[in-house]
């Protein structure tokens, strides 16, 4: 399952970052999207993309296309 499939309010644990191209992957990591991290989807933009997530106590926005490369498992 990947991050773009989560509904607002759902949380997931990041398993790995795959199928993302180098710079995007590195940028995600620099922003704290690293394996083991708990990430929560807060909102979807009014037009359906991008999404807002929270992790490490701050808010991040990313496009669904970028979120698709983040593999997660749903957390309760």
């Amino acid at each position, binding site marked *: 399952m990947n991050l773009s499939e989560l509904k607002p309010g759902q949380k997931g644990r990041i398993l790995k970052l795959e199928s993302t191209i180098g710079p995007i992957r590195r940028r995600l990591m620099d922003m704290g999207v690293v394996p083991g991290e708990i990430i929560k989807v807060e*909102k979807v933009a009014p037009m359906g993309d991008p999404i807002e997530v929270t992790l490490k*106590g701050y808010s991040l926005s990313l*496009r669904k296309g970028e979120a698709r490369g983040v593999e997660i498992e749903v957390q309760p």
Partner: protein
Amino acid sequence: MNNRKQIVVAVAGNPNAGKSTLINAIAGSRLHVGNWPGVTVEKKEAGFEFEGHYIRLVDLPGCYSLSPYTQEEIITRDYLVQEPPDLIVNVVDATNLERNLYLTVQLMELGIPLVMALNIYDEAESKGLRINASQMAETLGIAVIPTSAVKKSGLDDLLRTVVQVADSPEAHRPKRLNYGEDVENALEGILDHILHSHASLLDRYPVRWLLLKILEEDASVLKAANITSGSLPQQPFDHLRRAHGDDIEGLMADARYAMVAGLCREVLSRPEKRNPELTERIDRIVLNRFLGIPIFMAAMWLLFKLTFDLSAPFGEWIKDMTGGPFKRWTEVVMGTIGAPDWTVSLVNDGVIAGVGSVLVFVPVIFAMMFFITFLEGSGYMARAAFVMDRAMHAIGLHGKSFIPMLLGFGCNVAGIYATRTLENPKDKVLTALLIPLMSCGARLPVYVLFVGIFFPDNSGTVIWVLYILGMALAVLMGFLFKKTLFRGEVPMFIMELPPYRMPSFVSLCLHTWEKGKHFLIKAGTYIFAVSVLVWFLLNLPWGVENKHESYLGRAGSVIAPVFKPLGFGTWEAASSLITGVIAKEIVVGTMGEIYAPKKDDEGEKEQPTLGEDVKEIMVSFSGAGIKAVSSLFYLPIEAEKEEDTTALNEAVKGHFTPLSAFAFMAFVLLYMPCMVVVAAMRQEFGTWRWAGMAALYSTLLAWVVAFLVYQGGMLLGLGG
């Protein structure tokens, strides 16, 4: 003045950590703003005395990491490695400790003495976050000073610490952080190799940083150090890969974040119960599925209104000053010393008008900068991009491209300067290239003149068609540029949504002032030069009676054949298009002068008094042009109303057909943006490349579109 050596302090930190505010609070008006060489990223510096020491602050661009990917990151790390400062002040957002410390850890790898400004500390405290600063200082081996840039607290402490650390740098090297046995062993292995084969590198680079970059196989470092990855011993890498997988760069990001997480467990305690923060509550409304877009549109309407309406009266005032009293005084002064007519005209219509045409832009640039900086500082800019990204991304742009393009409808120059909110240089350039296709306020008088004559019953519709034509072509050109100039770029929208904060008013004003000053000096120089040049074109040979005989008229005759297939191949039309490069609105003024010249010589002979002379100057050829430049942004229909245009209307009617009039309007919409836009692009991007590109492609596009309109219309039998 001082014999002590200066202390060079580099200030680094995440975006939104309050770095600018901190620097403004410390340095205030002593700040000097420039650009980093070759890029559009701003470089701020300030030098000042503090308790007997001379401190030079260098503000590094805000960045989240020292990866070699974004422009900001590359500038920061190149500076720190190539010109190591005496120490680094790392500005850290205390309310967002974990992500901010990720950069801290990387800065520590450089081995440069580090002082942490634990900023926004007051807000962290009021949120109930407890940070054990002294323990953090001890664990990391650096000084940690709580500060609040907005409240100006802790700043003296910070500077005092800076001086102390600079006095005994060796005692203040940050601790070497241990990234775990596997990583450390691999680093040892690489060190052995470097000592053997590349020992000279150790003088050029901080050792630990070099080893880490080699381990991460950082392409730019390997290249600069002249190391091919094949020549490296494979053993340290293989061992790591076996234990942790192939992605060593990822492993290191992980290791650093693990280090930070461990540190946060030690020094940070969060309150048990948490009330929804203000930011969350605001976002529930502002980013709401149904309210998000209406709120966004209302905000944009307000931004547009404030930027253009607020600055308009000031622009008018400057225009009246330079166009009236200034000229009058020059006339008097130059008259008393008996200066010849042509020098008076040069000073008035060339020099003063040139200065005036720069000054009239100041209010709108200031207003735009102020509100844009406010939107950024408050946190709404990121939300605006979040709301609009879907639509903008669909046409190959970034969510943040919307605001510059919107402002382009008021004034393209304002739009160009607003592109600075885009971080990625490619997004920035692409947006700027498309802004000239947004029909600005200065083009409206041209439409008004022509639709009034040829389409009196559908004037509104025709003008709308032109606006939409511009937008549609922007979409088309956007795609074309993406596929050609910017092929292979990785579009990204990974962006922090920072908490809402009230920006400091002083900081806003300082920033606005710096930008406005830059425009005046840098772009102003070009604009001024062109204005004087145009004076020569318009007025020489001196005393020319027939406009056809002036250099302008001759130039118009030369290029007129180019416009023949577009339906307006006359020297009159061509000449007015040439002057339209100063400002598109001048097209109308020039046409007035050519088609329906006013009999101004009578007044000159009978009434050489000052008050009357001002009027004369205003209707003189270039005087009319200057007036147009001056009223560039304010939907200038009203400004033109006073003039009696019946003679002009009749003449235009005789020279154009409805079809060629429409082709002409399309051409005016699209061809080369005015010189102020070109100068702004030159200044903003530090090269003529994109400014030239914009001028060239838009003119070609204008020709093609006008050609299609006219020839297509002829084929359809609309030529009559």
